[in-house]
């Protein structure tokens, strides 16, 4: 019975084709945008949460003699470190460029077990380890006054990374740890990287430049792009460093957005756009389905006059819709997967250890399908209202 019912309500061929094409277009554009929205948000979240301590300025080297250029820049006021920067790994190197908390540097003797890995560059998924407890204490539990640590000599053991290319699992450059080396130096400055009421302290450290170079190991073999990242000793001095570098003839740009209002505005704009686009897509699907219902009204009236219940007719329509939608949904789903991987790759280029991918966003695909079903259910009253008496008023064909 239901098989026959479904057949009776089947769309005409041109309707099916039109519907499929529209669904594919909607799927591809809509899902891509939807995929982009959360990726974009993640991106901003990353830069906000973790990179606020970057205080980096990115510049392009002017000569091929990177080493002497680094020394020249390092002598500029308020420069904590200057290291060759790989586009891909600036996040990693940023962690090693001198901005480590006292605790991480084992000044106080607490959390000693953590320190070496942290200095060696914690992969981003362990970034939580890098964040300090809100109140710094020494081994005896006494609160530490950061300023009192300036001038102290500390030593840090750094593990050198050895980079290899792993083509099969992921065409990316992967670090593996090899040798270790201990660096000794004095703390040159202490400052709070976060908000004023945040207790985390970060120290500038004399030998951090060498240290991070050492830690980077053979990275330059993979990306000898001549970009340098210059770290200021505190965020408040960043613009000063930046203008100093400009006056030296470098074109410089901050490594991350640090302006939260800008980010907020961008997010609001982006989400408004996505919501609007979503509404338009919803409207298109709605109109399309109403049209489908109208074009089947004769059949529906006949089925009703035959004494078939509304709910069964609704089910027949739904089966037909789903059947028509399977191919376009699969097609646009596949496209969606690809494009979102690509987008994520582009967006998260600099984040080591972050696996981009739309796995979580499949939820949106499910959302679209659910929305379609919802619309059909919403159309049920339409079926109920459709009077079978219209058959009696039908013009003779």
């Amino acid at each position, binding site marked *: 019975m239901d098989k*026959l019912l479904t057949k009776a309500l089947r769309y005409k061929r041109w309707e099916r084709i039109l519907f499929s094409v529209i669904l594919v277009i909607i799927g591809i554009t809509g899902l891509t945008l939807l995929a982009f929205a959360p990726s974009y948000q993640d991106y901003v979240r990353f830069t906000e949460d973790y990179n606020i301590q970057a205080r980096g300025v990115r510049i392009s080297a002017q000569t091929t003699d990177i080493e002497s250029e680094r020394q020249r820049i390092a002598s500029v006021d308020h420069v904590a470190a200057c290291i060759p920067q790989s586009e891909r790994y600036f996040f990693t190197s940023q962690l090693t460029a001198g901005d480590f908390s006292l605790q991480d540097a084992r000044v106080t003797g607490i959390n000693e077990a953590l320190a070496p890995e942290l200095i060696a560059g914690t992969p981003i998924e362990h970034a939580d380890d890098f964040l300090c407890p809100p109140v710094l204490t020494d081994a005896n539990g006494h609160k530490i006054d950061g300023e009192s640590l300036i001038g102290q000599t500390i030593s840090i053991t750094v593990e050198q990374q050895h980079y290899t290319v792993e083509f099969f699992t992921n065409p990316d450059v992967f670090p593996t740890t090899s040798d270790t080396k201990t660096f000794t130096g004095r703390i040159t400055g202490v400052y709070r990287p976060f908000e004023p009421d945040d207790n985390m302290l970060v120290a500038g450290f004399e030998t951090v430049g060498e240290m991070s170079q050492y830690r980077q190991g053979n990275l330059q073999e993979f990306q000898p792009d001549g970009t340098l990242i210059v770290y200021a000793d505190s965020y408040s001095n960043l613009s000063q460093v930046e203008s100093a570098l400009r006056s030296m003839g470098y074109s410089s740009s901050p490594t991350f957005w640090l302006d939260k209002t800008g980010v907020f505005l961008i997010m609001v704009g982006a989400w408004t756009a996505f919501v609007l686009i979503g509404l338009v897509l919803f409207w298109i699907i709605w109109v399309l389905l109403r049209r489908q219902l109208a074009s089947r009204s004769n059949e529906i009236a006949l089925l009703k006059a035959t004494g078939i219940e509304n709910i069964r007719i609704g089910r027949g329509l739904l089966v037909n819709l789903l059947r028509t939608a399977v191919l376009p949904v699969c097609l646009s789903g596949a496209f969606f997967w690809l494009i979102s991987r690509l987008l994520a790759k582009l967006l998260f280029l600099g984040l080591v250890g972050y696996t981009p991918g739309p796995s979580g966003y499949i939820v949106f695909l499910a959302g679209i399908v659910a929305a379609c079903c919802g619309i059909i259910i919403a159309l049920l009253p339409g079926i109920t209202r459709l009077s079978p008496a219209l058959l*009696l008023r039908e013009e003779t064909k």
Partner: protein
Amino acid sequence: MAILTADNLTKQYTKHKKSVLAVDHFTYQFQPGKLYAILGESGAGKTTLLSILGGLEKPSDGQLYFEDRELSGMKDRELSQWRKNKIGFIFQSSALCQNLSALENVMLPILAAGIPRMEARQRAEALLDSVGLSERADFLPQELSGGEKQRIAFIRAIANDPELILADEPTGNLDEKNEKLLFERLSALAKEGRCVIIVSHNPQILHYADCKIVLSSGRRLGADG
């Protein structure tokens, strides 16, 4: 006992604040075993009356009883059930599902009544055979002539052996021979004890009708028989 009792049935359509009284206090008792002809000029309310009698439209006022059950109080489910088992409609446009073959079109109401597929198929084949269309079982409606479609619409309407058969201009696009055949078949059904109600402009109907109901502006003018 009357199979269908109309008690002051009234249907008023309102559109753009203008109201049309399509059926005006129609009271009548339809008996089984009779063929009724509903006549009247165009716009008199014949189609409206028929759709109310078949439960396709609800009256704005008045009651309709099937045997002794009141219909206006029924829910969609019950009404569907009632239409499925008790009523056969024949529409002027010989309404058939365009996607279904002749056989499937006849099978649909039988399956809807809960008959198993195999049995429904046999019954549909027998019905097609009875109107000489077994050769056309696999044809789609657009591959059939007007008269053939009408015959299929006819057997479709009687497939579940309904007690009440309603037809609106069933001979609309038939030639004289087919017209006569259809009226004869409907008349035979009435003789077998069913109640047949036909709306028609065709004067031929008067040769077959047991009772004549004339409508004018929604009102019944008089009935004989």
